[in-house]
């Protein structure tokens, strides 16, 4: 098969996948805005989505369900793209925002803020969580980056060490100050059901920046994922690219966690599914990861509404229920291969 042929067949796969994903995404969004404790008609859904919300039900759709759905989509996409980038630069199939300290960093700072400054507004709480996410990520990247000659394993190990340390501190605070923090546990499991328009607006610029950087870096990510030697051999500035990736990951995953809590496994499993379909070319992997991540979290959020109906359950429970078996499957697959 010639190179051109294989390239064009990849484009075909890509386009077909994108079409299917967009269809799934639209279906998911429609389901998400029409299902809830308040029954609404399709007419009300249409009016609300066209921006003509007036009645109570239409306002429920436009001011509660639409931002919730958008938040799930953005958070899912952000975590998935962050995970894809991490797996490319670390060449470690288990790399994800959850493992590399970002989730736990954000969680720690949010819990700390609530304990020490109970009068903090939800808006500044979001900013604090963002700082924590950056801190956790930066700490891991700093440790894994300087320890040894760019050995990717170090990054993951540093990440696990830092995550455990930060999580231990968070739990320590919860135990010590339980009166104030008991209700944070729900958020700690990862939840999008409280998403408001202001959360969406907080999220959008950060996500925009993150996606933009990740698309710009996608070609370099493909080369980096082949190994540092090859990347250096063709004159790639590996250090600099890694630094950009680190920034993009912190921005994407950090802002996602800051509004939705530490939702696990999305960043871990989505890149694997995408690479299985499309291969290791990150020009395709990045946009598809964004789509898959959004789809995964929207449907997971839909499922979470029915676990304890009529009450809400954290969406993190659903992603963990899907992600944990997948993670075990990954390990078994690798064991068989080696």
């Amino acid at each position, binding site marked *: 098969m010639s190179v051109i042929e294989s390239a064009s067949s990849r484009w075909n796969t890509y386009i077909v996948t994108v079409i299917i994903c967009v269809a799934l995404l639209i279906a998911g969004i429609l389901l998400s805005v029409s299902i809830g404790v308040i029954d609404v008609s399709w007419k009300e859904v249409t009016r609300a989505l066209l921006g003509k919300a007036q009645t109570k039900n239409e306002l429920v759709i436009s001011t*509660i369900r639409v931002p919730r759905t958008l938040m799930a989509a953005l958070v899912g996409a952000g975590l998935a793209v962050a995970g894809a980038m991490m797996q490319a630069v670390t060449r470690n199939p288990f790399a994800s925002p959850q493992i590399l300290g970002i989730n736990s960093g954000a969680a720690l700072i949010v819990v700390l803020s609530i304990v020490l400054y109970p009068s903090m507004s*939800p808006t500044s709480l979001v900013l604090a969580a963002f700082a924590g996410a950056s801190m956790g990520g930066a700490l891991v990247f700093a440790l894994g980056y300087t320890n040894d000659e760019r050995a990717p394993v170090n990054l993951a*190990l540093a990440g696990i060490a830092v995550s455990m340390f930060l999580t231990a501190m968070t*739990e320590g605070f919860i135990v010590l100050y339980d009166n104030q923090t008991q209700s944070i546990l729900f958020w700690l499991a990862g939840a999008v059901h409280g998403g408001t328009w202001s959360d969406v607006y907080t999220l959008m610029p950060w996500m925009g920046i993150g996606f933009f950087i990740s698309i710009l870096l996608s070609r370099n990510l493909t080369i980096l994922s082949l190994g540092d030697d090859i990347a250096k051999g063709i004159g790639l500035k590996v250090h600099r690219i890694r630094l950009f990736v680190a920034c993009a990951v912190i921005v994407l995953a950090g802002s996602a966690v800051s509004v939705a809590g530490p939702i696990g496994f999305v960043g871990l499993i989505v890149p694997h599914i995408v690479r299985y379909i499309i291969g290791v070319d990150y020009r395709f992997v990045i946009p598809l990861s964004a789509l898959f991540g959004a789809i995964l979290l929207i449907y997971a959020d839909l499922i979470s509404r029915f676990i304890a109906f*009529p*009450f809400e359950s954290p969406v993190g429970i659903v992603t963990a229920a899907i992600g944990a078996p997948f993670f075990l499957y990954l390990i078994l697959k690798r064991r068989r291969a*080696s």
Partner: protein
Amino acid sequence: MKRSMLKLLFFGLAVLLINSGCSNAAGNNKEDVQTSGEISEVKTVAHELGEAQITGIPKRIVALEYSFIDSLVTLGITPIGIADDNNPESIIGPIKEKLGNYTSVGSRYEVNFELISSLKSDLIIGDISRHKEVFARLEDIAPTLLLKSHGATYSENLSSFPVIAEALGKQEAAQQLLQKHQETLDELKKSVPENEQRTILPAVVNAKGFYAHTTQAYAGSLIEHIGLKDAIQSDVAYPQLTLEQLIEYNPDVLILMKSGTEETIVSEWSKNPLWEEVNAVKNNQVYEVDRGVWSLSRGIISAETIAKELIALLYP
């Protein structure tokens, strides 16, 4: 090399995932049963997790939940040790004024066994939902009663009062106190008109969420007990609600249980035009109360305080 790296990663992840929070303080001090000169009567008191053998009348009591402090103070006894989460302010005013000196034994969640045993306690009262796992270790220190408190309804909570009284040999006094309590509530109940239609929703609010207290929660079941109606009839005690769910349940009266002056999710919700759709907001019947009294304390004294406050709010 690759294998061991995988194993290490897997192990690390497993630890991250499981995150077992079961760190127990070391030191399993076994106190000898103190035998004084006089011959003390041994009685058996049944509780939620078996039976306790109690010798004589306990004098040095440790209470591991707020509701047991309430019960003890009602019986005129100051416990020697209290799990007050290292925060004396968390004990509500009406209880504190009747409470003598005590030693804080720290958090209700992380029981400090060494401190408790150093108090030479002769009776420990713990919560069945919180202290089930450490029951054996508490028993090693002193006879232990595990009773219902956290996540229990008003009547379930009240049922622990006679048990405590029995352990202290104060059954008769308890009988009278219970009767008096019943009369107080009955008197307050008279203020509720026959045709009262309003639904009431007590809810804990903080920065991260809105937690409704249903008929299974303490405040919710107490509201029902005095002839009012909780907006959410459910066997889930403290469900977290979204604004959409609040609108669906649409309570006529909203009681927001807050601690201090913290910024809560309500300030965010009140910007939404739908907030005005909630009956309680429309009727201007959104009240803020102390979470300590309404949700943490859960006992005879707090029940009367809650009921009085509620009646005063509803029928000014």
